[in-house]
C-alpha cells in the first residue's frame, strides 16, 4: 500500500523519486541549471579577476586610447573601436551577399542545387579560423594592395575612410576575412527561415498578380524578416569574438584611425597575443577586464538575437491562425 496513495502532494518526495519521471526531471534540471551556473561563474571570475584595473581606471578604461604595458596605463578604446569597425565592415559586406544567396537558395533555385550548395556552405562554416587567417595573408592582403586599394584610393582618396597609405593589412582586410567567415551563418539560418514561410503566403501573392520576384521580395522576405535579423545578430556575435583570423590580417596596431586601410587591433586579438606574456598583476588583470568587455558585448547581442527569435515564433504562430 506504500506509495499507492492519491496522485497529489501527499506522497513523499522519496516515493516520487522511485519513479523514473521524477528522476529524469531532476537530472535534466540539474544539467540545465549547470549551464546557467557556468555562465554566471564565468562572469564572476572575469569580474573578480579584473578588480585592480577596474578600481584604478574605472570608466576611464573605456575612453582612454593609451595601452602602455611599460607605463602600466591601460585604455581599451582602440580595441573596442577595432572590434566594432571590423565587425561593421564584415556585416556590411556579408548581409547583402548572404541574404541574396539565401533568397536564391530558398526561392529561386531547384531543390537539388539548393541542397548541394547548402552542403558547401556548411563546409565553409566548418573551416577553422586559422585557415581563414592564412587565406587572408596570402590571398586577400595582395588583393587589397594591388587591386582594391588603387581602385578605391585614387578616385575616392579624399574621403576619410579611403585616405592614406595601405600596408595590405588593416581594418578592411580583417573586415573582408570576417565577412567570408560569417556569410555561411547568414545563409544557413536565413534559408531555413525563408523555407519555413508558409506556401499560402507565396501563392496568395502570385494569385493577386505579382511577379515571382515581387512575391519573394515584397511578401516572403518581410514575413521572414525577424528570423533574418536573428541570423545577422548571430553573425555579428561571431565576428565580434573572432580571434586568430583577425590577428593575422588586422595589423595589430592599437591606434584609432578613420581610414579603412589603416592597421588596427581588436579585443580578442590583443588578448590572444599578449596575455601569456603579461607580467605584473595590473597588466594581467587589464586583459581580463578586456575579456569582460568583450563578453558583455557578445552577451548583449546574443540576448537580443534570442529575444528576436522568440518574437518571431510567437508572431509566426499568431499569424498562421
Amino acid at each position, binding site marked *: 500500500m506504500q506509495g499507492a496513495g492519491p496522485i497529489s502532494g501527499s506522497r513523499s518526495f522519496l516515493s516520487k523519486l522511485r519513479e523514473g519521471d521524477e528522476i529524469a526531471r531532476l537530472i535534466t534540471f540539474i544539467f540545465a541549471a549547470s549551464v546557467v551556473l557556468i555562465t554566471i561563474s564565468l562572469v564572476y571570475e572575469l569580474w573578480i579577476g579584473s578588480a585592480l584595473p577596474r578600481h584604478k581606471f574605472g570608466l576611464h578604461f573605456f575612453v582612454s586610447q593609451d595601452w602602455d604595458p*611599460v607605463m602600466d596605463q591601460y585604455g581599451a578604446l582602440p580595441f573596442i573601436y577595432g572590434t566594432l569597425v571590423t565587425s561593421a565592415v564584415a556585416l556590411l559586406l556579408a548581409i547583402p551577399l548572404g541574404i541574396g544567396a539565401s533568397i536564391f537558395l530558398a526561392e529561386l533555385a531547384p531543390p537539388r542545387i539548393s541542397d548541394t550548395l547548402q552542403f558547401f556552405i556548411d563546409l565553409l562554416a566548418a573551416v577553422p579560423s586559422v585557415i581563414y587567417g592564412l587565406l587572408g595573408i596570402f590571398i586577400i592582403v595582395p588583393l587589397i594592395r594591388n587591386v582594391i586599394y588603387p581602385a578605391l584610393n585614387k578616385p575616392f582618396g579624399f574621403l576619410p575612410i579611403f585616405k592614406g597609405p595601405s600596408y595590405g593589412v588593416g581594418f578592411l582586410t580583417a573586415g573582408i576575412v570576417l565577412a567570408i567567415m560569417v556569410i555561411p551563418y547568414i545563409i544557413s539560418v536565413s534559408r531555413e527561415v525563408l523555407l519555413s514561410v508558409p506556401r499560402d503566403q507565396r501563392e496568395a501573392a502570385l494569385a493577386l498578380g505579382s511577379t515571382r520576384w515581387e512575391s519573394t521580395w515584397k511578401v516572403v522576405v518581410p514575413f521572414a524578416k525577424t528570423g533574418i535579423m536573428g541570423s545577422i545578430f548571430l553573425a555579428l556575435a561571431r565576428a565580434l569574438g573572432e580571434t586568430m583570423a583577425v590577428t593575422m590580417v588586422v*595589423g*595589430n596596431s592599437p591606434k584609432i584611425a578613420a581610414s579603412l586601410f589603416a592597421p588596427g587591433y581588436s579585443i580578442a586579438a590583443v588578448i590572444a*597575443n599578449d596575455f*601569456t*606574456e*603579461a607580467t605584473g598583476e595590473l597588466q*594581467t588583470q587589464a586583459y581580463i577586464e578586456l575579456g569582460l568587455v568583450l563578453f558583455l558585448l557578445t552577451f548583449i547581442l546574443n540576448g537580443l538575437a534570442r529575444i528576436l527569435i522568440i518574437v518571431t515564433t510567437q508572431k509566426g504562430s499568431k499569424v498562421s491562425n
Partner: protein
Amino acid sequence: MKRTAVLLMAVLVASGVVWAQGLLINGAGASFPYPIYSKWFDVYHQKNGNMQFNYQSVGSGAGIKQVTEGTVDFGASDGPMNDEQLKAYQDKRGSEILHFPTVLGAAVPTYNVPGVSATLNFTPEALAGIFLGKITKWNDPAITGPNKGVNLPGNEIVVVHRSDGSGTTYIWTDYLSKVSDEWKSKVNKATSVNWPVGLGGKGSEGVTALIKQTPNSIGYVELIYAAQNNIPYGTVKNAAGTFVKADLKSVSEAAAGAAKDMPEDFRVSITNAPGKTAYPISSFTWLLIPSKIQDNAKRDAIKGFLTWMLADGQTYAEQLSYAKLPKEVIEKEKKAIAKVQ
C-alpha cells in the same frame, strides 16, 4: 564476469601509467629556447631513464608567473626577472629564485626593399630612428650613409614588430633603450611595449610573413629563425664601431665581453657589449630555479641536469643554431649550482 574484467583492466592501466612515470619534473617558460630545451630533455632522459623533464613553451611572462605560483618546478625566461618580480617570488615562496643562463640568442634586422639584394648596414641611430618613426624613408642619410653603393629608393619605411609579448622584443627594446635616450624615455624595454609606429605580426612567423608580403618593410626576428628559414638580414654597428653580421661566433663574443663583469646572480643584459667582433643585439636566456626545493629527488635531478647542461649539453647548441655559453660563464655557473638546496 564482464564487469570484473573491465575493472581489472582499469586498475592495470592506471598502475601501468603510474609505474611508467618515474620522476616527473615540470617546467614552463620562454618559447625562444624551446628547440634546444626539447633536445636536452630528450637526450637527458635517454641517459637517465627514470626521470622525465616536461617543458611547456608558454612564454617568458607565463613562465615567471608559474614558477612564482609554484605550479611548475622551474621556469625559463628570455629576460631576467626584475626586482619587483624577485620580491614577489620571495614573498610568495619564502626563498630566492636563481637565474642560470643556458644559451645565447640574438635578434637581427630583416627587411624587404624592392631592388635591394645586398646586405644592408644599420647604425644604432638608424634603427632607433626607424622604430621611433622619426626616419621615414629608405633613402634617409642615416641609412644611405653606411650603405654606399646601394641604390636605396625614396619609399616610405613600413615598420613591423611583434604583436605578441616576446623575449625577442625584450632583447630588441633593451638594445634600443641603451643606444637611444629618446627610446628609453618614450618606450623603454619589456616583452610587450607601446610601439610608436608599425604593424604587429604574431610570432616570428607572423613578422616574416608580413615582411615578405610588404615591400619597403623592416622588422626583427630571432637569429635562429632567420638562419633556419634563409631570410636575409642586415648588419648592426656595435659599440666598437664595427658592422657585425650576427652569427654564432659574434654572439658568443658578446657574452665573453660581458663575462668579466658578470653579477653573481647572472641577471645581466649583454646588448651593445664591448668587443671588436661582438654582435650588439645578443642576449642570454635563463632557467629560473628555486633556491629551495623540498623534494630531494627533484632537487638532485635538477642539479644533475644543470651540471650536464653546462658540459655535454652545450655541444648540442651549435647544431641547433644557438650560441654556446663562454667558458668564464660556465665556470661561474658551476659554482652557483651549489646554491640550490
